[in-house]
């Protein structure tokens, strides 16, 4: 007996001995469900009939577990599970706080809508090539990136969603796709390798990879370790992933080449993972270093917004217009990161929710228009207002949302950001955000004017098939856009909690290390 007691006491130094309740599994479910579903889909690659149903079912389950997770995190604070029972920082922790859980929820919603849209858009060949398995594995990677509490694990999840995104991007293997994928793949690989270099330097300085552990030890190492260098490297690596100017050139080279669903999910979700990683590392791990870099980030943000949207003004292909709109949205989010105040960060987080939904919806709208008229070019699209008023209504709402005009969801995060910029004493940044709004209105307004409003030139080349799935997908995404626009308080509250959670990391640290734990 005595022997056993001694053994148990020893184990407590290394293992989590408290039983893990099944309810805690919501923190791994958003990763485990897509992985298992993706594996099943890979095995059933010839049974293409089953693909859509299985993938949508799994994404629905993931979505529900994300809802539970967010609810749990909002009521009880961050939820932590450390893999394999090892005590943190030795085991890899999954730590969901409000920021990660809410972004994971919105990303899963968007992926769910994309999977529904893909039923009609991705035919048997695309399914056989593996659209749905790649989609599931990408969502596993995205979910893992949002929920993990370990910086090396974050790198692994980045690579998981990156390699799945290569598969999605090249699906179909048309010549422009090969071209776009080559550039996307090489530049993103270099970006994540930069991230790995930073992680290795971080490990050399801290001797730990657990983010909560790094956050609590950062103060001790501030004198001796080159933390500003690390923060700057993180800024470069994740800025590359988020497509911030001047490392954004892979995005306009590739995002218009794949299937429209793929473009929608990439434009909606992937760049936000980069923004999330920036928030996590620069705000939570290295706040003082972020202060030092804030001026640089602010100029980068302003340049990304303005140059991004000016690119959109010069394009004829709707998909390429949208690619540049994605970039300028990233600039708006970086503005909040540069400000670093609670209000600015909640603006950034709110903008990330909004941008995920709106950018996906805009790409899907382009897909619906292409399905009806057979083209993406602003030169030939015309007359939707007369022939398809529903498309026109969606287009108007989404255009207003992307430009940040009422009554859609884009207004409120911009209000928060502009107010934060003026409060911080950076009126030029506020001006840049407002000017971006104006230019976005011009770029997308012209799209509306030409594609929707213009009289059809010649007989309208409209296909007889009604894009019912497209309407459903757009409806599901347009509803939150409108609701958030009219009643933003709950979302603002969530964004403020998320911002508070990364600005003051003590609750996060406390939930990873309940008793102060081992050093």
């Amino acid at each position, binding site marked *: 007996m005595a022997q056993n007691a001694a053994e148990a006491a*020893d184990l407590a*130094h290394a293992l989590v001995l408290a039983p893990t309740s099944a309810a805690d599994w919501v923190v791994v479910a958003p990763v485990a469900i897509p992985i298992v579903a993706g594996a099943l889909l890979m095995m059933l690659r010839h049974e293409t009939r089953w693909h859509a149903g299985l993938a949508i079912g799994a994404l629905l389950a993931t979505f529900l577990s994300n809802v539970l997770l967010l609810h749990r995190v909002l009521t009880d604070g961050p939820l932590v599970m450390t893999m394999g029972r090892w005590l943190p920082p030795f085991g890899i922790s999954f730590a969901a706080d409000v920021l990660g859980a809410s972004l994971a929820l919105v990303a899963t919603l968007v992926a769910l809508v994309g999977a529904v849209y893909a039923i009609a858009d991705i035919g048997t060949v695309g399914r056989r090539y593996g659209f749905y398995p790649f989609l599931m594995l990408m969502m596993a990677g995205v979910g893992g990136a949002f929920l993990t509490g370990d910086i*090396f694990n974050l790198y*692994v999840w980045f*690579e998981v969603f990156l*390699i799945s995104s*290569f598969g999605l991007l*090249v699906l179909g*293997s048309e*010549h*422009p*796709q*090969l*071209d*776009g*994928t*080559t*550039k996307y*793949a*090489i530049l993103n*690989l*270099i970006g994540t*390798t930069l991230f*790995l*270099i930073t*992680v*290795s*330097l971080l*490990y*050399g300085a801290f001797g730990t990879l657990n983010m909560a552990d790094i956050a609590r030890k950062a103060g001790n190492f501030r004198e001796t370790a080159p933390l500003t260098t690390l923060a700057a490297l993180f800024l470069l690596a994740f800025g590359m992933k988020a497509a911030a100017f001047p490392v954004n050139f892979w995005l*306009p*080279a*590739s995002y*218009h*080449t794949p299937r429209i669903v793929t473009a929608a999910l990439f434009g909606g979700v992937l760049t936000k993972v980069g923004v999330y990683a920036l928030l996590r590392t620069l705000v939570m791990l290295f706040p003082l270093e972020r202060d030092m870099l804030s001026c640089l980030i602010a100029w980068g943000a302003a340049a990304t917004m303005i140059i991004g949207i000016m690119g959109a003004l*010069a*394009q*004829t292909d709707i998909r390429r217009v949208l690619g540049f709109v994605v970039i300028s949205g990233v600039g708006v989010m970086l503005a909040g990161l540069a400000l670093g105040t609670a209000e600015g960060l909640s603006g950034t987080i709110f903008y990330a929710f909004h941008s995920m939904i709106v950018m996906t919806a805009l790409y899907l709208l382009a897909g619906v228009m292409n399905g009806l008229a057979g083209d993406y070019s*602003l*030169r030939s699209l015309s007359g939707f207002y007369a022939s398809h008023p529903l498309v026109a209504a969606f287009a108007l709402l989404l255009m207003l949302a992307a430009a940040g005009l009422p009554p859609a969801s884009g207004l409120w995060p911009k209000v928060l950001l502009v107010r934060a910029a003026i409060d911080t004493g950076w009126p030029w940044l506020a001006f840049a955000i407002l000017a971006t709004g104006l230019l976005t209105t011009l770029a997308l307004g*012209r799209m509306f004017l*030409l594609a929707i409003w*213009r*009289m059809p030139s010649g007989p309208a080349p409209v296909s007889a098939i009604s894009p019912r799935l497209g309407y459903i997908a757009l409806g599901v995404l347009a509803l939150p856009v409108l609701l958030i626009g009219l009643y933003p308080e709950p979302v603002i509250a969530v964004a403020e909690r998320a911002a508070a959670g990364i600005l003051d990391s003590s609750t996060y640290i406390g939930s990873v290390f309940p008793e102060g734990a081992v050093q």
Partner: protein
Amino acid sequence: MEPVLAAVIGLFYAVSIYLMLSKHIIRILLGVAIFSNAVNLTIFTAGRIVREVPPIIPEGLEVLDKVAANPLPQALILTAIVISFSFFAFLLVLAFRAYQDLDTDDTDGMRLAEPKGEDLPPLGY
């Protein structure tokens, strides 16, 4: 030992960046391969270098009784090798396919996704 490794790592980074600045995909890929090796060496060096003492806890003890090699960087490097290996394999297939289909591995010639001299959008009705 660290200074020697640092110099080697610096050399690797220099070579890989030089190769990645090339216009030819195959050279860029070679650069990427060397780049990932440079990173692996960086992780290895960041984990401190100790001579050949395996981190095995002797019978009857609960913690290591003397300084031993750090096993974590090796786990990290193994993960990084696996990832970079699979990426490299994918990129190789992709580049080969692109070379066959586009008839070039010169990035200047790969302008199918963003063709030169595209029309501007219409400026009015």
